[in-house]
């Protein structure tokens, strides 16, 4: 079948068959085939890159801005900015690993609104946090407070670093002890065997290397 037949499904099938069997073609056709394959590959690459850019463009607004109804935002941009900064440190109790600014859960929206109400009412940032902390405890804070109950949490990195340093020091000391001690002294029997071989009984070879 003529691979040039345009349009028909059988023609497309035939041309595909031609694509997988380039050995049957002339050198010139083969070169043309290689070039066209390169073009196809490049085109595919560009198309995929384009798709990636499109995907990133679609997803970017989701990550860059807080979700939620723009009507919930405060008209004063400075206050809204304060509310957002606070909200990023407040855990969404339902989804647990998101801040209330990142979550679309109903309770997260309620808490976003409460934060804005308290700010408009004149609360300081600390007062807003205290309001939520009184109701939801330490868990609502994405940055845990420094207290006895959280001591293990805060101490863990310090303990890990100290343990690592201790391990390094111990290993160095051991390496130094091994290097300093050298081989054990020769026994009387070994000295006699060395003497029989005509070597000095020092444990050192003639060229100064250790025996």
């Amino acid at each position, binding site marked *: 079948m003529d691979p040039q037949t345009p349009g028909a499904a059988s023609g497309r099938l035939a041309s595909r068959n031609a694509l997988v069997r380039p050995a049957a073609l002339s050198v010139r056709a083969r070169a043309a085939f290689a070039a066209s394959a390169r073009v196809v590959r490049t085109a595919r690459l560009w198309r995929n890159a384009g798709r990636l850019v499109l995907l990133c463009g679609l997803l970017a607004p989701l990550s860059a801005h807080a979700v939620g109804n723009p009507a919930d935002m405060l008209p004063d941009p400075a206050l809204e900015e304060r509310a957002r900064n606070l909200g990023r440190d407040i855990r969404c109790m339902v989804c647990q690993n998101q801040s209330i600014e990142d979550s679309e859960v*109903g309770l997260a929206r309620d808490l976003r609104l409460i934060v804005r109400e308290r700010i408009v009412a004149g609360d300081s940032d600390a007062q807003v946090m205290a309001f939520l902390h009184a*109701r939801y405890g330490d*868990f609502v804070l994405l940055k845990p407070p420094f207290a006895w109950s959280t001591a293990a949490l805060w101490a863990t990195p310090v303990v890990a670093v100290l343990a690592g340093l201790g391990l390094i020091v111990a290993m160095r000391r051991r390496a130094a002890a091994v290097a300093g001690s050298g081989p054990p002294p020769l026994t009387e029997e070994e000295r006699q065997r060395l003497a029989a071989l005509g070597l000095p009984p020092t444990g050192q070879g003639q060229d100064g290397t250790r025996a």
Partner: protein
Amino acid sequence: MSPASRRALLFAPFAVAAAGGVAFYGMLQGMKTGEYNPRGVPSALIGRNAPDFTLPPLDGADTPPLTSADLRNLPGPVLVNFWASWCVPCIIEHPQLVRLNREGVPVYGIAYKDRPEDSLRFLRQHGNPFRRLSRDEPGRVAIDWGVYGVPETYLLDRQGIIRWRFAGPITPDVLEQDIRPLLRRHAS
């Protein structure tokens, strides 16, 4: 290092893995019995009085409303249950609430973010175990209680101090293993 201690060191990773396995098994057992809940969050209100609130009653339910004034100087421990008609686990726990109410334990209800007609339909269908019942459609009083989902149940002692909070449906196991001992402990 002596050969004996060197050999002992060889088994150290196995010992660590075994300890981890035992701990994990303990966690799984705890999850099975409800003793350990990895998603559970301790309430910030334990040991404190219930927050002040007034809420409207659920019209048509023939049940007086619940306000914070009703949670002071009580004859015995009470349960406060946050629920909603749209909440599937609430259907699971409902028979346990009905049972507690039948046994004379005061069960107070707050319908959370629910339309009154939906709440009423739920109670007509499953029974009304609540001695007092209010509705919190905006969900703001629930936030004052530290509620983060429904169902959620609080146990208050006679002085009205919150002693226990359970987030999730009250299964027969929770009723027997948690609520009954707590009711006994705070009876006097």
